[in-house]
């Protein structure tokens, strides 16, 4: 598969088959993903992995905890929460990603940017191994309670969770807008810039 093909044919996978995902493979891909990012300096991000049945169960519990707090909500959303929980427990492996924040906007932006680039390498490397992933950031997990449960520190921001697993069927791609349509070339106006 050419690099162009890999990039164009990768899909986000939401439906996994039950085949177990070896933790060693995830680590190997992650190592390579960092290497291919060619960043300078120290790593300002970290990963928390949930791949065992116990850890997956715990993560799914955290994800629905917010809906369990209120009795009325719990009653009203009971069935929904249950299917939500089941869906999360079934995900073979989860990689939770955090990035360090910083008061310096440049460090702050580049840390987040770099870890996002690592995640893209990781998704592409996974695809080569027929390993599907989806990067979730959905509102259900955007809560202080959830962040606390998964161990987000005060000087960190939540980047997302990569749900990982093998799959039987990939969805069709949705066409992208041609880059030409989002392209502008800056040309000199001929006026001197005021400094």
């Amino acid at each position, binding site marked *: *598969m050419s690099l*162009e093909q*890999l*990039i*164009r044919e*990768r899909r986000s996978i939401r439906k996994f088959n039950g085949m177990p995902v070896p933790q060693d493979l995830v*680590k190997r891909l*992650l*190592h*390579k993903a*960092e*290497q*291919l990012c*060619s960043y*300078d300096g120290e790593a300002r991000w*970290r*990963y*928390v*992995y*949930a791949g*065992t049945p116990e*850890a997956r169960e*715990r*993560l799914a519990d955290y994800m629905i905890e917010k809906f369990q707090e209120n009795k009325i909500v719990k009653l009203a959303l009971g069935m929904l929460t249950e299917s939500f929980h089941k869906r999360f427990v079934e995900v073979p492996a*989860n990689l939770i990603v955090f990035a360090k924040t910083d008061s310096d*906007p*440049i460090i702050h*932006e580049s840390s*987040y*940017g*770099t870890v*996002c*680039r690592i*995640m*893209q390498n990781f*998704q*592409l*490397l996974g695809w*080569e191994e027929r390993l599907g992933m989806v*990067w979730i*950031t959905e509102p259900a997990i*955007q809560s202080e309670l959830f962040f606390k449960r998964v*161990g987000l520190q005060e000087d960190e921001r939540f*980047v*997302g969770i990569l749900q990982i697993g093998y799959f039987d069927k990939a969805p069709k791609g949705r066409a*992208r*807008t041609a*880059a*030409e349509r*989002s*392209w*502008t*070339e*800056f040309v*000199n*106006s001929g*006026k*001197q*810039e005021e*400094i």
Partner: protein
Amino acid sequence: MKLMDRSIEPQSSLQFNNHPVPQALILELLNHAVWAPNHRLREPWRFIYVGENSRDELAFIRTKAPGHLIITMKNESSTHKQDENLAAIFCLIQNFKLLAWDKKLGVRVSFYEWMFDQRHCQKLGVTDKERIAAVLELGFIHEWQDAVPKPAATLNWSLL
């Protein structure tokens, strides 16, 4: 070659030559790179290209490179969506960087204080509905050598 077997030169050791970077090539690579995952297909990016000869009026861009590609991001009302847009843009940037390396084109992903300066943004035509996500400095590699993979750093890894 599989991505697994590829390597990329670290950003700090990239040396560009003076050859201009054809816009057609950048667009060709971008049209692959836009296959980045992005939430709800918002495609939150826009590209502003500044060639080597167009920098006269942009004194705030101090880095020398045959080409500058400024990537802007559509602003969103919530931090959560804003972060999603940023993430999508960095996925696109990484796609672009990998594709460019294959053409011996180096890409430095850079961040500067002027990115956050409204006056400079206006000068570049960045509207108030968007912001600059990153600046890519582009140039063909001076004295090409295959990159040597750097030793793997320890992962900041723990178990839930």
